[in-house]
């Protein structure tokens, strides 16, 4: 159960929220202004703050801003009149969990709280998994979509129509979906207003706000018979509506576009002073995957669909889970160039080729990791052991020098003399440009 703070300048609204939430076992307090709310938040830890948007003094938006800046982990839910839907979309961009339009039923309020708490649980679980680095990227979404954060997505199609669906974290916090109430073809939808209702396995109804306004020209009929598509493939087969948008240019700007969304997530983490755990936005290089694909052996990296066979088959991973082929590919695809190239784990491949043999997509990970290492070397991150080997090869033409002493030992057991091949590889390093790289790094 959670500690919840209700903020509304109308006492009657506070009281009615308390009446709805207290029987659920929540610890509920009320504040009649933004100022009072901040005072209470400073003194007591709340998981959820429910605030009215329009209040004298510190209003809902200002309160949201301050809370998100100072107490990032607190979930803020906005109570809005229908007239302020535009502001609600803006509020979600600023980090509000969701909004509840007035008038609302007790069930509507209870459900949105339940979903917020479930989402908190999911995120905590992820955070606790040994404080794994980059956990938030488990939730990273496709990068060519427009998002109403943690709620819905929209995709602009080539013909100008827009398809829309639910976001991955939304479906995760709802849990198993057993039914969806779809609108009809020909209906109009408005950005930020109800477009569909989703029923979870506990028969709770969750409202889905449309990310775009316009006329519905198609609905995904498959969802009627198989709503589980919303859970299994929220960005693909689980799409919900296709809309002829009425004002796409202005409205898409209200949403957050793919790559920017990653930044949006990161900003929140950075506020939590965890920069070291999560990469800085400036470190993301969307061209990294193309750079790898241009290297011999890196060609297929982009077709990885993340099934994890490589990781499951990797004998190094079994011993040391800092080496995780699937994760390395994900990081590369996300453009975490610096984090990958500077890491110690890229040098741990045993080149057993098991991942390469088993990949259903033909991604040759053994070659991909070599391509990554080649790039790392160009950037000055050659592993000292490999540098030493390269220097030996340059000097001797082989990894072990075979001098007179060794040849005498060989002769004793009737093995032929091995001739020195000094300079042979040093010449190769010159024409290939590797010598220059080594000198630059030395």
């Amino acid at each position: 159960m959670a500690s919840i703070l209700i903020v509304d300048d109308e006492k009657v609204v506070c009281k009615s929220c308390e009446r709805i939430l207290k029987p659920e076992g929540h610890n509920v307090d009320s504040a009649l202004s933004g100022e009072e709310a901040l005072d209470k938040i400073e003194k007591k830890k709340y998981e959820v703050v429910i605030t009215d948007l329009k209040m004298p003094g510190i209003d809902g938006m200002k309160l949201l801003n301050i809370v998100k800046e100072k107490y990032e982990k607190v979930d803020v839910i906005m109570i809005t009149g229908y007239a302020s839907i535009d502001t609600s979309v803006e509020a979600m961009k600023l980090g509000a969990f969701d909004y509840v339009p007035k008038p609302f039923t007790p069930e509507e309020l209870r459900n949105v709280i339940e979903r917020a708490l479930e989402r908190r649980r999911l995120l905590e679980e992820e955070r606790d998994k040994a404080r794994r680095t980059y956990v938030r990227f488990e939730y990273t979404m496709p990068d060519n979509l427009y998002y109403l954060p943690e709620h819905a997505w929209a995709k602009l199609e080539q013909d100008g129509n827009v398809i829309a669906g639910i976001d991955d974290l939304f479906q995760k916090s709802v849990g198993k979906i057993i039914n969806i109430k779809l609108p009809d073809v020909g209906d109009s939808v408005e950005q930020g207003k109800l477009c569909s209702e989703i029923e979870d396995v506990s028969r709770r109804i969750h409202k889905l706000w449309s990310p775009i306004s316009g006329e519905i020209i198609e609905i995904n009929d498959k969802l009627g018979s198989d709503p589980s598509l919303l859970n299994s493939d929220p960005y693909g087969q689980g799409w919900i509506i296709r809309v002829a948008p009425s004002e796409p240019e202005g409205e898409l700007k209200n949403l957050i576009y793919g790559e920017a969304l990653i930044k949006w997530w990161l900003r929140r983490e950075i506020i939590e002073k965890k920069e070291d755990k999560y990469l800085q936005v400036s470190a993301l290089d969307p061209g990294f995957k193309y750079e790898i694909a241009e290297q011999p052996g890196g060609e297929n990296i982009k077709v990885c669909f993340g099934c994890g066979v490589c990781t499951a088959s990797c004998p190094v991973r079994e011993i040391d889970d800092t080496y995780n082929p699937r994760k390395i590919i994900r990081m590369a695809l996300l453009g975490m160039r610096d984090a990958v190239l500077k890491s110690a784990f890229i040098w741990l491949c045993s080149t057993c080729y098991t991942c390469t043999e088993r990949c259903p997509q033909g991604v040759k990970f053994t070659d991909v990791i070599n391509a990554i290492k080649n790039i790392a070397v160009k950037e000055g991150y050659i592993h000292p052991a490999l540098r030493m080997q390269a220097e030996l090869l340059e000097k001797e033409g082989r990894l072990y020098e075979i001098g007179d002493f060794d040849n005498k030992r060989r002769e004793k057991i009737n093995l032929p003399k091995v001739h020195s091949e000094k300079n042979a590889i040093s010449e190769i390093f010159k024409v290939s440009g590797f010598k220059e790289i080594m000198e630059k790094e030395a």
Partner: protein
Amino acid sequence: MEYALFLGCTVPARARNYELSTRRVAEALGIELVDLDGFVCCGFPIKSVHYESFLLTAAKNLILAEEKGLDICALCSACTSMLTEVNKELGENNELREKVLKKLGVKKKFRFKHAIRVKHFARLLYEDVGIDKIKSKLQKDLSPLKIAAHYGCHYLKPSDIYDNFDDPEHPKSLDELIEATGAATVNYENKNLCCGAGTLAFDENIAFSMSGKKLSSIKDTGADAISLICPFCSVMYDNNQPSIESKFNKRYNLPVLYYPQLLGLALGISEKELGFNMNRVKVTSLLEKLKQ
């Protein structure tokens, strides 16, 4: 049956027992292994740091063999894999071939894949000599021995460069070669597990844990020895066996034989000529078993 013998870096320096036994076995079976001056490293250590240098290095070796009109026989599985890969790549990719020849300053046309083949000595025994011929030459009964085959990785992988020779997930060629000597083979858990040598220079714990896991699995079967065909693998299981034992507080005392050493015994070649004195884990008890 004439091949250019590609020793690579590790064999002539750290696996002379492998080289010696291979040469003696080849003589006994009528395989002529020719030593060419000018072979250098296969390129394996530089593949991960500078691909083009790797290509040029491997190509230099292949050109030398093609010039002499000889197929290559390699003893190290990594050398086999690297040379096979580049031979295939340069044989099929005209543009890359031209570029490589130009960089190496080679004027003559070399065709790579279409001119010469690269084979591991074990594959050569399996395909070119054949199990039947091997059996026909046996002098000594090895049937008291139980042997665990260790295939390693590069002998069969990546499979797309090996023209479907053997099955990397369910390999059988080395088991059949061992059985051809009269010795029995054992099946064991983790049979396809890598020896870990590729990680030794970077993380000893990973390398030793991987080797230790396999040594334990093999020890559990009651096998008399491991038989393998790669000097890297032998460095892990033989040379490093005492270190692995002390790290994990275990006692394996498991002899590690290069396959040509085992085959040489069956062909009646003397123990000295097979270099058993150079094995780190003593093979005395195993040899005694054969004398009983």
